[in-house]
């Protein structure tokens, strides 16, 4: 896999954006400024970043309830995202969807999703559409370990394989389905082995290694573009925060979080940069400061955005059917 220093720096920038966006969301939620629920992606940044960096702008992704990282990595706008989290009218869903419904069709982001396992079949639909239109686009379907117990996972992989759809299934195995350890909800340790039941390649990689994720997803995307069908990639990773903000994580054994924090994907990339003269520590610090500013701007944008009007509650409920049967 060829990768330039500029591409590496872009990926690092994306990881910083995710980390700092999520830390800000954590703080603002604690301050009571974000309504509803937020499910934070801190610790898993390498998965979304490495995977989306292997995609083109016109490729698709489907996301999950823990979707901020995927959306940022696919080019989502920080201002619109933050405004949506704040429930403001300039947000992606005009402040009416919140964290779990952010979508941006122009950027191929087919939506975060509050339903566990709902992304698989949306990905299959987009894969079928790609095949029907005869383009060489690809859809990456992100999901967690517990969703692979849902029927949608099995239906999705089955159809993707039968129809040889250009879908790359990226399982972010963070070890827990809400509060239930994978050891208690599955009789397997490596979700990648489920691929063999659907006659597709399945591999397990270190999800905290940006290079490993980018390399594996890059190969799977290339395979999908050539019409060789779907792939299942299991990224072993860990969410530092609870399932949602406010979750006390009493189900975690002592020392587990600390052990995973030692595998933090961001310092691993920084170490590589310094050892291989990609960036100096000063340049790293400068980039961090720039991202801090971006997050502060997003905060200001969200704070200054008006709340949705009462009347708007009845808007966007139904689609307008226009001529030629197309939905607007």
């Amino acid at each position, binding site marked *: *896999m060829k*990768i330039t220093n500029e591409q590496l720096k872009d990926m690092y920038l994306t990881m910083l954006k995710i980390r700092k966006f999520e830390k800000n969301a954590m703080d603002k939620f604690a301050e009571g400024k974000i309504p509803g629920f937020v499910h934070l992606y801190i610790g898993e940044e390498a998965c979304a970043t490495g995977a989306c960096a292997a995609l083109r702008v016109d490729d698709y992704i489907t996301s999950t309830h823990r979707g901020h990282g995927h959306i940022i990595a696919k080019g989502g706008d920080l201002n619109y995202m933050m405004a949506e989290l704040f429930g403001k009218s300039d947000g992606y869903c005009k402040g009416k969807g919140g964290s779990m419904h952010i979508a941006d069709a122009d950027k191929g982001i087919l939506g975060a999703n509050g339903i566990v396992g709902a992304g698989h079949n949306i990905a299959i639909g987009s894969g079928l559409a790609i095949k029907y239109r005869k383009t060489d686009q690809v859809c990456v379907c992100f999901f967690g370990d517990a969703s692979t117990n849902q029927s949608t996972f099995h239906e999705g992989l089955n159809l993707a394989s039968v129809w040889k759809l250009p879908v790359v299934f990226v399982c972010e195995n963070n070890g827990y389905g809400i509060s239930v350890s994978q*050891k208690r909800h599955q009789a*397997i*340790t*490596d979700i*990648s*082995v489920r*691929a*063999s039941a659907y006659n597709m*390649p*399945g*591999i*397990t*990689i270190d999800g905290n*290694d940006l*290079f*490993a994720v*980018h*390399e*594996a997803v890059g*190969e*799977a995307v290339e*395979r999908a573009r050539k019409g060789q069908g779907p*792939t299942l*990639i299991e990224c072993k990773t860990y969410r530092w925060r609870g399932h949602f903000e406010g979750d006390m994580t009493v189900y975690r054994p002592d020392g587990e979080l600390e052990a995973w924090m030692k595998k933090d994907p961001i310092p691993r990339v920084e170490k*590589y940069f310094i*050892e*291989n003269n990609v960036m100096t520590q000063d340049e790293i610090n400068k980039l961090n400061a720039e991202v801090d500013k971006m997050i502060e701007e997003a905060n200001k944008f969200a704070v200054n955005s008006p709340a949705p009007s009462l009347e708007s509650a009845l808007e966007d409920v139904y689609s307008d059917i226009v001529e030629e049967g197309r939905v607007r």
Partner: protein
Amino acid sequence: MTSIGIIANPASGKDIRRLVSHATVIDNNEKINIVERIVLGAQAIGVDRVYMMPDSYNMGYRVTDSLNTCDELKCEINVINMMLFDGMEDTLNATEYLEHLGVGCIVTLGGDGTNRAVAKAVKNVPLITISTGTNNVYPVMMEGTVAGMAAAVVASNRFNNNLFISRDKRIEIYKDGVLIDIALIDAVISKDVFVGSKAIWDMDKIEKIFVTRSHPASIGFSSVLGCKKIISPQDDFGASINLNVKGKKIKAPIAAGVVNPILTEEPFIMKLDEEYEYVTKSKGTIALDGEREIVFPKDQKYIFKITRNGPYHVDVIKSLEIAQINGFFQDIANSDE
């Protein structure tokens, strides 16, 4: 008390080569099936205790449950009580501990990478190596029952081990006079600039290959050399070969289902214990037994040396033949009564 050890790598058989080649997935349930047969084969031939490396899939406990359920477990299975890291450290630590326990033989389940990890830690305990990995030169496909029987023969200590155990070669890599790593089969100089998904498959990026042995039937990078010159495990030399520079093209099975033409020079024979200096021409990585491990900058000097310091390795067929010739299977059957 006759005991053996088992190291079954839960991570083997699942890497990116399922995606970039046509390699098979070996899931952990299949490894459990193999371990069950090892235990059954070993206990039938006199093994009283089996020690197993612990792992995140609890293979040792699953084997115990399964054999207890069908009332076939006669020996004792002890899963080693040690801290798990879900990485190579587990194999290193378990190997050291098995040696400390004094087991008569260690059976490994994995690929070349797994056995390289065992080889880094093992000193004198002989190995029986079963392939459940990807590019498998060091371990071979073998029925677990037979492996268990052979392990029991070795652990019985009744025979002259020199008849069926030999010491393998290894590649030693030195930097600034310090041994930094080893490989059992091949060390490959690649232009890949990071470790990433570890496995290596892109021939265009390969600059040089060092091998301890080579054969056209050995899947992986050693086959490139093997398609030009066969070097057996018994030969007291290894070799290196330059790629993608000049010379003639040759076809070799570099991965499962991948037989590609490669531009090669003539092999250079490396005698045992002879030092070979290599200075890196650009940034890159050294892959050891198929996995990128060492990241290097330009102009870094390394010494490569082929030695006979590898693990002691059991010839399974020969061990069973010696046991048969000496009436071992008859003795064991009669002592059961």
